[in-house]
């Protein structure tokens, strides 16, 4: 279905009512006033506390777990270990190598071993310290080279490679022959912590025999249900999962949601008591998944005319203790390896490698942030080698309609990267800023970054989404989606789509918190699919309901269906607009006439595929594109980098709400700058040493640069409601390369490792004699 056209034909409006307009989010006031309820707000005082006993060894066999002393601590209810897991003791996302509770072997400092259930936190803490775990230490590996070395300790399997990927496009040998310039470098992109304002929290209540209700922060209630049911050995309908408003997620809570819900649920059903598990900040930093670290070895070539000829990449992803999302993450990096450019000859080899460290997981940009950090520097370098302007060089090679991507996917709609790039170049006066400017001890420079990001699931796994809509007797509506509100506002975006199609007032829609007992499975809030997939399912539900409302209204108004217009929660005849029927009356009539007042929306993404031997195929349903220009000032005495201005542009298909697009971009700029120059997760012998806001530095409001008006490009995606594409993830991807390229412009220095902290910059300047 070509949704973008269908909708505009169907609605037949000169101007949309709410789509594309700035609107105040329905949840804004609650959040502003502190009235919004997050998981901890649902947990009554004196609820049984669950704490997790975690391994203190990076790699060891578990010889014995002795809970007898701990059980004697007054106030301890029970202590659960692997033998208490009634179902499958397995919680791995992609590969079945991650026990829910470990009883044989631990793979990193932080691996869960036992759950202490006690009347309060202090008691739980005391008991936790009294649990004795006897280990037989194994040699541990803390970096990818050590893991890949011959004779390295085996973490899960021989040679420690969890998964491999590959792309072979064109003829790479010919590519090198056609190249007049070739640039080569090795890049390292480290861990990044999400630093969600809300630490993980889960609350579980046993519900009679054979049912448990869980309230927790998460990104996919149905995934949580599936994982918890498996651990409990229950059917899906025995586990009820409610997603509470989630105070920041950025991907992290897609990974932690099932874990924390599992801890609380197992404690609740084993003790028959409500149970609460709340992480503290140091636990979040020490044990929960981070952005995967990765090394790229890049070789890129171009001919004398400035056309890219070949790209060869070796990707070594460090997954840490468990593969988790690694197959999907690595595949995204592999499939996007050339950046948003057309390259005829490509060879990419990826492998994901285990180490005995905190494992990687989902994080905004899903592989593409690191990938573009490297790929966009390669492109920049080629431009400099060829003595071409970095924008002009990109423009010559940029993806357009009819281009083929890294994995040979033909782009036949919704490609607006050229407009994004042209837009930021014009807005930033790019051509005038080709020389860095010295101001006292500082040098100012300008850099550009481009990005693309496939929407929807990676590895071409089938993707679909669902939603439901119900109109009540007074004309108010309940909208249900399992796409989660994690701060980004996707469900509100859905509500706007519904309001546009039904013609109801926005505030007549209540969005239900996702609840697996009543909310259809919309699949996860990840992969830039929340609006693109979830919103299209919303549109499907709304179109169905609209048809029935129109049918009844045309009868009541005594006019052809085509003449019925719906707006302001009323129906009227376009030719005779004075007579208006409120929705309440129409709903009553719908019931009498047997028109269903509830509807279920369902949407399946077009099928995607790739060839396993070459990696070529139709990999992603559609891509979101972005470009940014960054202005930075580098203090050559102190090495401090300040990002002073960003000019952002994005091709979002169709803006559902400009405020929400800006919100995503502004947040992404901050998070991207943090990754580029500040955030530095440090580990010693596999133990995270930066365990709080004091030591793990993220940008504050004072570090936010001036942000120019967003240049919004709308190249509609033909298969999604109104043509909208995902915004949240792609918004961060171009920021890091823009900043890094600007730093190069200012200093002449290339950094193949981030963050470019003041001490690293200072050292580099010193070595280059530029201090």
């Amino acid at each position, binding site marked *: 279905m070509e949704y973008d056209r269908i909708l505009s034909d169907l609605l037949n409006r000169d101007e949309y009512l709410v789509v594309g307009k700035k609107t105040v989010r329905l949840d804004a006031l609650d959040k502003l006033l502190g009235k919004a309820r997050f998981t901890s707000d649902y947990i009554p005082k004196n609820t049984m506390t669950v704490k997790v006993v975690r391994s203190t060894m990076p790699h060891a066999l578990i010889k014995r777990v002795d809970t007898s002393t701990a059980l004697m601590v007054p106030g301890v209810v029970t202590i659960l270990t692997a033998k208490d897991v009634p179902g499958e003791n397995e919680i791995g996302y992609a590969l079945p190598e991650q026990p829910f509770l470990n009883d044989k072997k631990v793979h990193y400092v932080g691996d869960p071993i036992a759950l202490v259930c006690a009347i309060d*936190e*202090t008691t739980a*803490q005391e008991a936790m310290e009294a649990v004795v775990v006897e280990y037989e230490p194994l040699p541990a590996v803390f970096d990818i080279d050590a893991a890949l070395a011959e004779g390295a300790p085996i973490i899960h399997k021989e040679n420690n490679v969890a998964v491999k990927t590959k792309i072979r496009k064109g003829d790479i040998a010919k590519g090198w022959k056609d190249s007049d310039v070739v640039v080569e470098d090795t890049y390292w992109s480290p861990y990044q912590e999400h630093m969600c304002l809300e630490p993980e929290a889960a609350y579980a209540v046993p519900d009679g025999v054979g049912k448990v209700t869980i309230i927790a922060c998460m990104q996919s209630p149905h995934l949580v249900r599936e994982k918890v049911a498996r651990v409990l050995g229950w059917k899906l309908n025995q586990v009820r999962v409610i997603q509470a408003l989630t105070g920041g997620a950025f991907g992290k809570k897609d990974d932690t949601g099932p874990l924390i819900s599992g801890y609380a649920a197992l404690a609740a059903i084993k003790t028959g008591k409500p149970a609460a598990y709340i992480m*503290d*900040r*140091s*636990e979040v930093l020490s044990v929960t998944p981070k952005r995967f670290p990765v090394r790229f070895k890049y070789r890129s070539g171009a001919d004398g005319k400035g056309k890219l000829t070949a790209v060869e990449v070796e990707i070594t992803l460090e997954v840490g203790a468990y593969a988790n999302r690694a197959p999907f993450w690595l595949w995204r990096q592999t499939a996007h390896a050339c950046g948003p450019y057309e390259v005829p000859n490509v060879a990419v080899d990826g492998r994901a490698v285990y180490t005995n460290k905190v494992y990687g997981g989902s994080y905004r940009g899903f592989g593409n942030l690191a990938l573009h950090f490297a790929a966009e520097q390669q492109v920049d370098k080629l431009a400099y080698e060829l003595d071409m302007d970095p924008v002009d060089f990109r423009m010559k090679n940029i993806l357009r309609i009819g281009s083929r991507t890294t994995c040979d996917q033909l782009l036949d709609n919704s490609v607006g990267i050229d407009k994004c790039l042209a837009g930021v170049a014009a807005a930033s006066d790019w051509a005038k800023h080709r020389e860095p400017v010295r101001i006292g001890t500082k040098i100012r420079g300008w850099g550009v970054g481009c990005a693309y990001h496939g929407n929807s699931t990676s590895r071409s796994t089938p993707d679909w989404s669902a939603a439901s809509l119900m109109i009540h007797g007074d004309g108010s509506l309940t909208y249900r989606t399992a796409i989660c509100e994690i701060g980004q506002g996707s469900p509100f975006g859905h509500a706007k789509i519904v309001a546009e199609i039904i013609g109801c007032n926005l505030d007549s829609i209540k969005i239900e918190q996702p609840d697996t007992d009543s909310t259809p499975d919309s699949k996860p809030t990840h992969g830039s699919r929340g609006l693109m997939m979830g919103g299209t399912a919303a549109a499907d539900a709304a179109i169905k309901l609209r048809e029935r409302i129109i049918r009844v209204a045309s009868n009541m108004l005594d006019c052809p269906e085509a003449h019925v217009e719906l707006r302001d929660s009323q129906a009227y005849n376009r030719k005779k607009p004075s007579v208006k029927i409120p929705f309440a009356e129409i709903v009553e009539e719908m019931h009498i006439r047997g028109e269903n007042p509830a509807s279920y929306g369902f949407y399946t993404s077009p099928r995607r595929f790739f060839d396993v031997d070459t990696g070529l195929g139709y990999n992603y349903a559609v891509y979101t594109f972005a470009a940014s220009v960054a202005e930075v000032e580098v203090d050559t*005495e*102190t*090495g*401090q980098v300040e990002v002073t201005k960003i000019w952002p542009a994005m091709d979002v298909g169709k803006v559902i709400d400009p405020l929400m697009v800006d919100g995503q971009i502004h947040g992404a700029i901050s998070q991207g700058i943090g990754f580029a120059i*500040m955030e*530095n997760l*440090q580990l010693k012998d596999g133990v995270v*040493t*930066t365990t*709080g806001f*004091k*030591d793990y*530095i*993220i*940008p*504050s409001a*004072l*570090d936010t640069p001036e942000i120019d008006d967003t240049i919004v490009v709308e190249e509609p995606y033909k298969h999604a409601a109104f043509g909208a594409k995902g915004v949240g993830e792609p918004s961060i991807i171009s920021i890091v390369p823009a900043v890094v390229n600007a730093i190069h412009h200012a200093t002449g220095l290339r950094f193949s490792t981030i963050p470019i*902290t*003041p*001490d690293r910059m*200072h*050292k580099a300047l*010193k070595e280059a004699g530029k201090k």
Partner: protein
Amino acid sequence: MKPLTGFSLLRPPTLVGALEMMSTLEHAQPIVGGTDIIPTFKDLGSKPVHLIDLGLIEELNGIMEEDGKILIGPTTTHTQILTSKVIEKTAPALHDAARWIGSVQIRNRGTIGGNLCNASPAADSAPPLLVHGAEAHICSLEEGHWIPLLELFKGPKMTVLKPNEILIGLRFPTIAGASSSFQRIGRRKGFTLSVVNAAVYVERKDDALKEARIALGSVAPTPIRAPVVEDKIRGKKMSEELIDEAAEACVEVAKPIDDVRGTAEYRKDMTAVLVKRALREAWRRTGGEL
């Protein structure tokens, strides 16, 4: 992070009351803003028993100018320091330092006494007070005495205070023709501890440095002075060369370590940069030219 254990919070309205508690109760510890002490309970799981809140004792709070001296009560908040015209005029370095401590909330709660008694090598108010020749008034129920502020610090998070003693005042002289400057490097613009900091105090006589004092933070187990460098430049004619010489000499004085906030090498190099900037600014503030 460990759960906060129970403790008693005592709020004496008088200094004598507080001193009595300090000398009679076992494991008693003062608290004012709590911005240092509460996080340590959580991070280290240390178990406080009695916390004596000094915040209600009026005589411990405020800034006064008297007989050519500035007196500062230990419970004076960084916000009070920042908004004091007297401090801005007589001890610009202390004003500079207060400007960047934590955030508005931290400055509203955190106190100068807490900052010093917490004895962090990175404490931002220490270098300015050190260069202004501050003394600390230490008092127990039995007796009180003044010591040079430098002597208060014994090591990271360690002071010379005995279990029954508290800091009840700070003082430093006001000198005509003097000025000062404080410089710091943080890992972001605000809300963060200094990676390294420095304060410089100068007295100008025409184009010469009549007096020069330099203090450095985060480059040794305690905040330190750089007397060797001070001696080198005292009495000399001010010039860019002299500034460079002083800055380079300070690098030798700094004995920093590597930690999560920065490398030792970086801290050493930055000592020179900050001292240079502070010397220049302090000199200009006296009306001196370069």
